[in-house]
């Protein structure tokens, strides 16, 4: 698929090398790779852990890769397992931004320690973690972990979506991001809306999340891109309430997303034509086949597989024309 960013590419935007390499701009080293197709092929052919090359892994020059990963009970005991942490770190490094669900820990050091493990290969990931949420004293946090060479967070943007009627067990964490791989004026900006539904109240929570999505579309007039992602505890046949959102669609369908390969729980949801930046490429990173590990071992990592989708790094106008739609990050109004 040709990239609408292609003909706008300038030397400062970086030329595709068609192969793995590095380039330097403004004193920063930017990793480049083949395009999205090459990246997808590399993902499919991902070798076993021991064969992974050292150093930061290349990423496609013509796409940013957004992932959602429920890392079941991501806390002290999981972080104490070095090999689990190593697999988790390798997963995160494949993507530009990962929305993590189920951080469950007394300590505030779990995610920072994990990001240090991710960056052990020279990567420069950063993170933002939300408050502890949940109606009982067993609470969870959402976190965004992102490659700061390719993505930046609007620091004024993170917010927990207001839920005064208490419709959601864990109200979504919303944050706005911008790609850094092309000039600011052209960069794709977008809201990420992290969610993890209560499995006992899925229809009611999907109804509430529909309102959240519509609310985030109105959050600021210069931002038309809303990507809701996370563990919905539901698959597309249960997305009936989403039909209230004009042009709604989702990245994952007709496949399973849990580690046991029995359920479709995780997804990325966004609307057309607003998010015309979607490259039409998405997938599930199957822990067992990717790492060549048995189910029992994969379950030590998580009971969910990561799901992901690829987006153009530049703004794409809804009619297919190319140009800036969103302004630079500004404080929420």
């Amino acid at each position, binding site marked *: 698929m040709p990239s609408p960013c292609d003909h706008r590419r300038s030397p400062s935007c970086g030329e595709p090398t068609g192969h793995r390499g590095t380039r330097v701009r403004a004193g920063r080293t930017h990793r480049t790779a083949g395009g999205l197709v090459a990246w997808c092929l590399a993902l499919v052919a991902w070798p076993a852990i021991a064969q992974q090359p050292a150093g930061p892994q290349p990423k496609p020059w013509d796409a940013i890769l957004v992932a959602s990963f429920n890392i079941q009970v991501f806390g*002290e005991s999981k972080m104490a397992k070095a090999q*689990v942490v190593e697999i988790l770190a390798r997963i995160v490094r494949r993507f530009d931004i990962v929305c993590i669900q189920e951080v469950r820990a007394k300590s505030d050091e779990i995610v920072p320690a994990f990001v240090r493990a991710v960056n052990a290969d020279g990567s420069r990931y950063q993170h933002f973690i939300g408050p502890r949420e949940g109606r009982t*004293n067993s609470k969870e946090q959402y976190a965004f972990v992102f490659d700061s060479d390719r993505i930046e967070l609007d620091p004024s943007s993170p917010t927990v979506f207001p839920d005064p009627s208490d419709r959601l067990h864990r109200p979504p964490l919303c944050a706005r991001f911008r790609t850094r791989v092309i000039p600011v004026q052209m960069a794709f900006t977008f809201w990420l809306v992290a969610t993890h539904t209560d499995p006992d109240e899925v229809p009611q929570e999907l109804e509430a999340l529909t309102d959240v999505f519509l609310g985030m579309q109105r959050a600021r007039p210069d931002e038309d891109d809303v990507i809701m992602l996370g563990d919905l505890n539901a698959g597309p046949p249960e997305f009936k309430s989403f039909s209230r959102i004009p042009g709604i669609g989702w990245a994952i369908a007709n496949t399973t997303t849990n580690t046991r390969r029995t359920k479709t729980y995780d997804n990325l949801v966004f609307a057309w034509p607003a998010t015309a930046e979607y490259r039409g490429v998405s997938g599930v990173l199957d822990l067992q086949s990717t790492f060549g590990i048995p189910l029992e071992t994969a379950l030590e990592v998580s*009971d969910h597989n990561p799901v992901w989708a690829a987006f153009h790094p530049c703004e794409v106008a809804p009619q297919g024309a190319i140009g800036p739609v969103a302004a630079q990050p500004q404080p929420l109004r």
Partner: protein
Amino acid sequence: MAADAPVDIATLVASLTDRAAATRIDAAERLCRAGAAASPAIVALVSACGDDEAEVRDWAVAALEEIGPPPAGMVHELEHLLRGGQPLVAYWAATLLGRSGQAAASAVEALTDCLTTATDSAVTQRAAWALGKIGPAAAAAVAPLRHAAAGQDPRLARLATEALAAIGG
């Protein structure tokens, strides 16, 4: 990272009450990883939600979130746990009773008591939800549900209204 040996649910259940926190954490984690196969351990996992160690509670909650409805024959034990007083234990006992649906009809009185006397809002809300899941067999709870439906807690009011509709009250 070697794969675990085949899961012995009974052994893991016994380990959930071990004196050593590390043993309890490991048992709860292994039961969580066992998925639906751990359903015979549901009562023990609900009890473990009252453990002093947060990681035991976290793994027990994670296991219960995904485990589905309990096997037949656990209603009485869950009812006992519902009355036990610890909020997280009561919350999960109510949740499992609700997942049992009509099979938990004998727990209507306990759930109604919980609805009217529990001091933790998450517990009262879950009790209302569970009564709705039991359906018409929870007709005895109509009056307290109507009271809850008219209350100030918006979530409790909504759940009580939904429960009344499910019960036919």
